[in-house]
Structures are given as structure tokens and as C-alpha cells.
């Protein structure tokens, strides 16, 4: 095999629907696989912690249907990573159900679906932690049992190996739980003997679809072609171009390090990448290197509940109040503390975001305040919703009643667009961002194979299922 072409229609399946025109243009090119990632930790810890849907199911169905119809028509594999945003077992089962429903609707002949699960059982992890060190990423300390105990859901990011296994089992459609974006693209090229370096590099660039092209457009289809010595990228939207600058810049996207990119089993060395413009709309890249690591590790993600949340909004227009902002906020904190004790720890936490001053950057904001009005978002976190609501209300009302020297307004020094505290979703935090060593790349990722669709010829009976 000289080359293999992968179609990437979206950077996050279901987040907003795939743009159809460039998708169909890509399908006309008869790619060897359709691949899309459906997950992200950008959405925050809530969907994983609560194991809840983030994107609407109907948008996910839309994207899966586009891809499944094309994949069955072309007779090429379809691989989906990190099902339903978080890649929990619930997400995988949801996508399996959607694929079954879409197959039934279109009366596709039988095909083989593999579901690869990635959720990690707390007790299993605690048991492993007796034998192995679970190293923290980004300066976090090693994982300890108490952190695992206060984590609701844990997923592990699979590498290519479980996907290769599913392909070996004859899967036409693969729904992965939490998985490395790069791995879902790299699996098929690796299976056909293309270098790991180029296969993973293709994955790294294709995982956000049209974000590797210019001008900026999201959700447009891009084709990536892996050969034995290079990878080529071509956007399917006619107004986009893949240039050396756009591809090189995307190789930096969302990664900590400019030159190294760690993956299960090794890392991608990008230091010697060379970018070459093939024609107006295509760019070719050579020079990526793959370096095996001594230990096979997978990244664990976990989210745990912090407390119930309530939010309120209040604004300042009085220049005297803005000039005395620290006094105003000091008064608010003092009144809340008088009633509920000091903020922080196990009791409650009060966050006061001051828009117009440092609402976005917090203490990292270098620019001094310079505006005639200030918006204050109050966020209270407490063990119960009632407590959080009370604390947010007390803080909001004490902005109105703040006492400070030089006040002129004596009927309230703040404006409330509504005298109301809004209940917010339960607060979760990323409790786990760690690396777990594995002896076998498959050991955390059970695969279930299901026959889907309308049997051709004789009906042999219901669907088969196996789990290993």
C-alpha cells in the first residue's frame, strides 16, 4: 500500500453539527477511513463528574449519521474517539445505540461494530496503586487513595492498541471511549505498516479538522494522506488552504511543549519537521520522529464533586464606589464571614469576579482598572444548594448596602439587573490528571463486538456479542 487517506470532518463530533458541503466533497475523494474525535476536556469537569451529556444528542446523531452513511457506502472503516464528550461507558453505549438506530433507519446490510470502553473502576485503580506509582501531570503530586475516593468518574485515554485490536476483530465501525485524538487517526495507517511517526503526526494535525487550514473555519472537512515518508493535508472547503504556516501553527495547538508530544507508548519529536507547499491548497510534512518510551502509560482523567453552586450578578456605576472597590468588596466579605465563618475549606467558598477590573485574568491581570462601570459576578459554593443560595444572596445585597468613605448614594450604591440568585450546576473539579503505567496496552479497555444492520440472505438469528 502506497498511501492511505483519512477524512476528518470535525474537531469535536456533536459539539456543533458538521458542515455538509465540504464533508461530501471529501467523501467524493473516496478516503480509506472516516475518523472523528468527539471528546474534549475543554468543556470542564462537570460532564465527566456527573456523567452527563454536554452536547445535544440530536447533533451527535446528525454527525454520526453523515459519517455512517458515507462509511457504509464507501465500505471503509469509521472510527469515533471519546464518545459523547467524555468517553465514559454511558457515552459509548449512547453512540452504540445511535449507530444501531441509524443503521436500522437506512436498512444497511450487516456490519460489525466494536465498542471500546475506557472507564476506570475506582477499586481497580486503588488496587493498582498498591503496586505502581501514578504520577501527576503538570506539577500535580502523585495520586493518593483519598483523591481517588473523592472522584466520581475516571476515564483512561487509550492509545492505538485497543483500536488495532478492534480492527483485527473485523470491526467496520469503532466507537471508542476516552481516547487520544491522535491514536484514532493513527490506528489504520499503523495497521497497514505506515510509520508510527507519520501516522501519529497525521492524527495530531487532523484531530481538529479545518483548524489546520486557513482562513479560520471550524467543522469543515480536511483530508490527510499518509505515505511512507510524508503526510499531506488538504482542506475540502474551497476557500481554505493548508499552508506550511497553518499546518506548522496547528502542530503547536493545545500542546504544552513545542517540540515533543507525549502519547501512550512513546512521544512524537517534532523538532525536525519540514513543511513544504505542494500546490496552492496542499502542504506536505516530513521529519516527524517517534521515540518509544521505556514504560507504557495512559493518561487518567477524573472529576470529583466540590459542592453546590449559586450565582448572582450586581453592577457598580457610582465612581466613588468604583474608586473604593476594595472597601466595597471588603464589606461584602466581612458580612458573609460574620454569618458563615471564613471562606475556603470544607464550609463554603465565595468567589467575586470583578468584570471591568480583572474578571478574566484574576490576579494575573497587569492592567489597572479604567472604566466607568464594573460588573460583579458572585459565585458561592457550599455543601447544599440552600446554603450556596443564601451566601450568594447575602454577598449580592451587601454590594448594594456597602459602606465606604465618601458615599453619596444613600439608597443603595449598586445596580441589580434582577434581585435574584440563580442556582448553578453542581461544582466539580478535575481531581485526576495523572499517568498510569500499564503492563498491557489493552488491559483497561474491554472491547465488545456487535453485528449491526439487516442480515443479507438467510437470517442466522439475533446479534452476536462477545466481550474480552
Amino acid at each position, binding site marked *: 500500500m502506497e498511501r492511505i487517506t483519512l477524512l476528518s470532518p470535525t474537531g469535536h463530533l456533536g459539539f456543533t453539527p458538521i458542515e455538509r458541503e465540504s464533508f461530501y466533497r471529501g467523501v467524493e475523494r473516496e478516503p480509506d477511513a472516516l475518523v472523528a474525535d468527539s471528546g474534549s*476536556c*475543554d*468543556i*470542564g*469537569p*462537570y460532564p465527566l463528574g456527573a456523567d452527563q451529556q454536554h452536547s445535544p444528542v440530536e447533533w451527535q446523531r446528525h454527525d454520526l449519521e453523515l459519517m455512517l452513511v458515507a462509511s457504509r457506502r464507501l465500505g471503509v472503516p469509521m472510527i469515533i474517539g471519546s464518545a459523547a464528550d467524555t468517553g465514559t461507558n454511558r457515552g459509548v453505549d449512547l453512540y452504540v445505540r445511535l449507530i444501531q438506530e441509524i443503521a436500522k433507519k437506512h436498512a444497511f446490510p450487516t456490519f460489525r461494530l466494536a465498542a471500546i470502553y475506557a472507564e476506570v473502576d475506582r477499586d481497580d485503580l486503588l488496587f493498582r496503586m498498591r503496586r505502581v506509582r501514578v504520577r501527576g*501531570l*503538570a*506539577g*500535580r503530586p502523585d495520586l493518593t487513595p483519598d483523591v481517588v475516593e473523592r472522584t466520581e468518574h475516571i476515564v483512561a485515554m487509550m492509545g492505538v492498541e485497543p483500536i488495532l485490536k478492534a480492527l483485527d476483530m473485523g470491526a467496520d465501525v469503532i466507537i471508542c471511549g476516552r481516547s487520544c485524538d491522535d491514536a484514532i487517526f493513527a490506528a489504520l495507517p499503523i495497521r497497514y505498516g505506515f510509520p508510527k511517526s507519520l501516522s501519529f503526526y497525521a492524527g495530531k494535525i487532523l484531530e481538529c479538522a479545518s483548524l489546520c487550514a486557513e482562513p479560520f473555519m471550524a467543522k469543515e472537512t480536511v483530508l490527510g494522506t499518509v505515505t511512507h515518508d510524508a503526510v499531506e493535508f488538504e482542506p475540502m472547503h474551497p476557500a481554505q488552504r493548508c499552508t506550511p*504556516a497553518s499546518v*506548522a*501553527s496547528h*502542530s*503547536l*495547538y*493545545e*500542546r*504544552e*511543549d*513545542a*517540540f515533543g508530544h507525549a502519547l501512550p507508548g512513546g512521544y512524537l519529536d517534532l*523538532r*525536525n*519537521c*519540514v*513543511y513544504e507547499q505542494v500546490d496552492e491548497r496542499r502542504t506536505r510534512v516530513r521529519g516527524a520522529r517517534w521515540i518509544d518510551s521505556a514504560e507504557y502509560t495512559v493518561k487518567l*482523567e477524573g472529576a470529583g464533586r*466540590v*459542592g453546590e*453552586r449559586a450565582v448572582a450578578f450586581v453592577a457598580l456605576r457610582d465612581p466613588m464606589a468604583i474608586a473604593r472597590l476594595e472597601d466595597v468588596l471588603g464589606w461584602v466579605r466581612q458580612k458573609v464571614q460574620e454569618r458563615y465563618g471564613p471562606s475556603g475549606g470544607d464550609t463554603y*467558598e465565595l*468567589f467575586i*469576579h470583578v468584570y471591568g477590573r480583572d*474578571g*478574566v*485574568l*484574576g*490576579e*494575573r*491581570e*497587569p*492592567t489597572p482598572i479604567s472604566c466607568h462601570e464594573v460588573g460583579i459576578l458572585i*459565585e458561592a*459554593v457550599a455543601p447544599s444548594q440552600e446554603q450556596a443560595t443564601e451566601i450568594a444572596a447575602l454577598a449580592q445585597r451587601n454590594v448594594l448596602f456597602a459602606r465606604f468613605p465618601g458615599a453619596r448614594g444613600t439608597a443603595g450604591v449598586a445596580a441589580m439587573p434582577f434581585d435574584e440568585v440563580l442556582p448553578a450546576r453542581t*461544582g*466539580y*473539579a*478535575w481531581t485526576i*490528571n495523572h499517568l498510569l503505567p500499564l503492563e498491557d496496552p489493552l488491559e483497561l479497555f474491554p472491547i465488545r463486538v456487535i453485528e449491526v444492520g439487516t442480515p443479507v440472505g438467510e437470517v442466522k438469528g439475533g446479534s452476536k456479542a462477545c466481550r474480552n
Partner: protein
Amino acid sequence: MPKLIDLATTIRSKNAGVDQITFDILFRDEKSYRRVRDSGALTAEVIASLYRVPLDVVTHFSYVDSAWAIKFTLRRRRPSGSPGETDVFGSQQYPPLFDIVIPF
């Protein structure tokens, strides 16, 4: 003297995992890139001082000659999306970079 915003075509910030935010500064031409790189106006120390953080919060800083890019990464104040979050995607952390003056 020009500012960074006059020389760079892309200045962006984005989550790199749940504990870090990474910044990419991209240039249209090699001349502008080299000018900023060689000016000494953009270093890990400058970044730490601009964002008022200790130097070890800057976990990565590099000049990427092959991409005409400058990249650095900061550890987050708290993991993304925790209560108290102000920028869950980390996508609005870059504007203070605009006004960095680039000497000749």
C-alpha cells in the same frame, strides 16, 4: 517602537490539558519572527513578570524556528472549570501580550 501586536499575525491562548494554558505567537514572515526572537523582549522572565507569577509557573518557553512561532505555557491558577473559573477554555489569557514593546 512597534508592539508585539504590530508584528505578530496570531496571538492566542488555549488550554493544554486541564492544568495548563498554552500561548502561541505566530508571524507571517521570518523577518518579523527573528526580530522579536532576537530582541530579547519576549522571554520566560518577561512573561512571568507580565502575568505577575513566579518563574516556575512558566512551564515551557521556546522559539520555534521551523514554524516562525514563539510558544510558552503557564500553569493554571486552578484546574479548568473548577468553581471560581473565569476562562474555562483559557482562550482570553493572551491580550496582555499585545502591548509588549519590541525594541530595534
